[in-house]
């Protein structure tokens, strides 16, 4: 085992030594590591003193954990430079070929570089946080709970792995340091958004949710590492000299995958069934299994939590419609209840799932899908609490259009999830671009061939059929829908 790991450490050690001999990296890193905690501590102290005068307890309580999050993040941005040039920089300097010519295996080379990218920012962040905590303990500031500190440390580690692994992937895919640096914003911007969400949760103070966030960040980091490992190829680093975006080739490849050479609509649909849908079997099964669990969990959770939180519900159908309109920002909810609006709304949801899914290996897309499933659980469970039979309500209120709508959402989400699965699956004979184009073409085939027609049918049924059936069995529904 050690024999296999030793080369990794050799690569990392050389990289680390190189970084520590470069004052352009070492200087800012030392300043941020050793100086920034003092600055942050002084700011926190001033803010706490000021806010205490006006009784802003929440801000006072949350300021220190928030500062830890920020202090941990700053050194990562500097270290990103090292990771971004880990491969492409060596390529530019001409040092990569002797390294690639050594008998190391691909995963050893990749892991060695990754480790060298992760260690400095993590050590730097942890040192900064430790200094800050020592300063906090010596002042009149509340020390966060141990579990919260642990969560923040895990989050910092997750951010480091996430950013560095993504940077190493960019470094492999780029043909110049300049191009890799330009791509850095695709790492920094999403991570800052992620941190904004984390900060919001931090102020919300829900320990359990924070653990889920930690888990999600760790999963995403692991997927990025997997992506890098799956697609690291010596050949890719040496086989390309220019960053050429061949749009004609992209369009040709997309078209070839989209049409599958079909000459008629019938042949195209046959191909959709024979080729594309078979690829979606596994992600669809995963989604169905988790959907069942999500439904059961949301149903049970609503049954046990909702009675305590309901104080006053809508008194009539008109009240309900008005409150729905105010929540959704519609002037009149009834006006929006037409087939085109519902169709466009569902199509928009499908596109949002795709957009978020493409950047997160399908995870965020799948999460939105599960949120929709959990809403069904919540609604049916809540209806049960109001005295309606959930099963009956499902069959008369959801099933008529859901039989089209749910498979449409399931298929489009499965296609998005497959994009992520395809990306993290080793396919050394193809580039990431080729894999992405094929997976996107599959998604587009499913969207055009199945999802759009199914959503259109579902919208028509939802407007013209479901209300009639619902009215016959559930009296309040008539009042809402009138």
């Amino acid at each position, binding site marked *: 085992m050690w024999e296999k790991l030793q*080369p990794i450490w*050799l690569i990392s050690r*050389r990289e680390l*030594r*190189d970084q520590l*001999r*470069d004052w352009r990296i070492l200087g800012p890193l030392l300043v941020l590591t050793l100086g920034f905690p003092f600055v942050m501590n002084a700011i926190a102290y001033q803010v706490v003193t000021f806010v205490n005068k006006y009784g802003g307890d929440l801000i006072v309580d949350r300021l220190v954990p928030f500062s830890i999050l920020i202090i941990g993040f700053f050194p990562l941005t500097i270290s990103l430079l090292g990771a971004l040039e880990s491969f492409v920089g060596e390529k530019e*300097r*001409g*040092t*990569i*070929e*002797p*390294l*690639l*010519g*050594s*008998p*190391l*295996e691909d995963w050893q080379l990749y892991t060695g570089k990754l480790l060298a990218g992760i260690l400095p920012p993590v050590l730097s962040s942890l040192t900064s946080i430790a200094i800050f905590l020592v300063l906090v303990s010596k002042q009149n500031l509340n020390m966060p709970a141990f579990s919260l500190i642990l969560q923040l440390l895990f989050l910092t580690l997750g951010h480091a792995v996430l950013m560095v692994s993504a940077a190493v992937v960019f470094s492999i895919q780029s043909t110049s340091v300049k191009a890799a640096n330009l791509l850095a914003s695709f790492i920094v911007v999403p991570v800052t958004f992620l941190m904004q969400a984390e900060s919001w949760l931090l102020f919300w103070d829900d320990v359990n949710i924070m653990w889920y966030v930690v888990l999600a960040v760790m999963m995403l980091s692991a997927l990025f590492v997997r992506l890098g490992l799956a697609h690291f190829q*010596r*050949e890719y680093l*040496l*086989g390309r000299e220019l960053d050429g975006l061949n749009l004609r*080739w992209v369009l040709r490849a997309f078209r070839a995958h989209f049409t599958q050479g079909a000459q008629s609509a019938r042949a195209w649909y046959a191909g959709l069934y024979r080729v594309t849908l078979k690829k979606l079997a596994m992600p669809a099964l995963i989604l169905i299994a988790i959907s069942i669990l999500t439904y059961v969990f949301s149903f049970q959770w609503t049954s046990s939590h909702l009675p305590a939180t309901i104080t006053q519900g809508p008194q009539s159908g008109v009240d309900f419609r008005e409150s729905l309109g105010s929540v959704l920002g519609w002037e009149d909810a009834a006006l929006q209840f037409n087939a085109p609006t519902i169709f466009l709304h569902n199509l928009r949801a499908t596109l949002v799932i795709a957009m978020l899914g493409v950047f997160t290996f399908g995870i965020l897309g799948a999460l939105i899908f599960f949120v929709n499933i959990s809403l069904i659980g919540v609604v049916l469970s809540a209806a049960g609490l109001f005295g309606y039979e959930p099963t009956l309500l499902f069959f008369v209120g959801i099933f008529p259009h859901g039989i089209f709508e749910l498979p449409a959402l399931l298929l489009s989400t499965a296609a998005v999830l497959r994009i992520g699965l395809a990306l993290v699956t080793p396919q050394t004979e193809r580039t990431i671009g080729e894999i992405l184009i094929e997976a996107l073409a599959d998604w587009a085939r499913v969207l055009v061939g199945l999802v759009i027609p199914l959503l259109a049918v579902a919208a028509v049924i939802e407007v013209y059929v479901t209300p009639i059936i619902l009215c016959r069995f559930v009296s309040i529904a008539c009042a809402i829908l009138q």
Partner: protein
Amino acid sequence: MIETSELGKQFNDFVAVDGVSLTVQPGQILALLGQNGAGKTTTVRMLTALLQPTRGWARVNGYDVLTQGAQVRASVGVLTEQHGIYTRMSAMEYLDFFGALYKLSPANIIATRNRQLEYFGLTEAASRRVGEYSKGMKQKLALARALMHNPPVLLLDEPTSAMDPESARLVRDQIASLKSSQRTTIICTHNLAEAEALADVVAVIYRGRILVSGSVEELKRQTLGPSEYEIHFAQAWNEAPELPVGVTLLERTPEYLRVQVQNPRESNPLILRNLSARGAAMISMQETPRSLEQAYLKLMTDAQAAHLLKAQA
């Protein structure tokens, strides 16, 4: 030993190497000659298992480049076109790093590193950062690195490119000295004098294809025709010479005669006897020196003309 058969590499629509078949025996040095972009570096990269062939096969030191990449890389010492040296390391650190990558024992690393540094005359500068080295020193260090694991196969891509003549000669001498061992070597170079001095076998590559291969003499004969000889006279001699079969008269002046001889061993004594019998006072008869460069340039001109004709057709 290196063997390739119909080795080819295609990048999308571009064919970089198109069916290269070569055999280089242990102890031999093969010089791979060709224009920029002819496919030399791509061939070397395939032989180092850095690029995967899209057709054909290659075996290096008995290992298949497609399926036994790690073994191939362990058997090969590569000197790349760019020296590829980490400038913040000292020469000692650099050689130690690569020694460890090639899984040499610590004791072996120290012994080999010191030996290589001494061999290449770098001992005094061994603890200095490589960034301070001259280009020649860097190239020598790169060669030392390529030899650290005592590889049975050496692949040298432009070993003396962009070097001053003195450094180039030093490196060339050192490559020549490596020939004594039973090592298989391929040198890619534009320097034809270097190739002529070092190589046992020469192969000329053009647009990814081997145009011609063989010893330097064979190459000259194939390209420029049979050997040429010049006969210089002590006094003007104006008679028409009688030449044996297989000898062609190329040039004739009262002072000298230039002939092309198919079989010098048989024909040259006859020529001399004939001229002497007819009263020609000869000062000397010597082979006209023909350089590899002449042969190469002729080959390239012919190849380009053929390519143009083909393109027009």
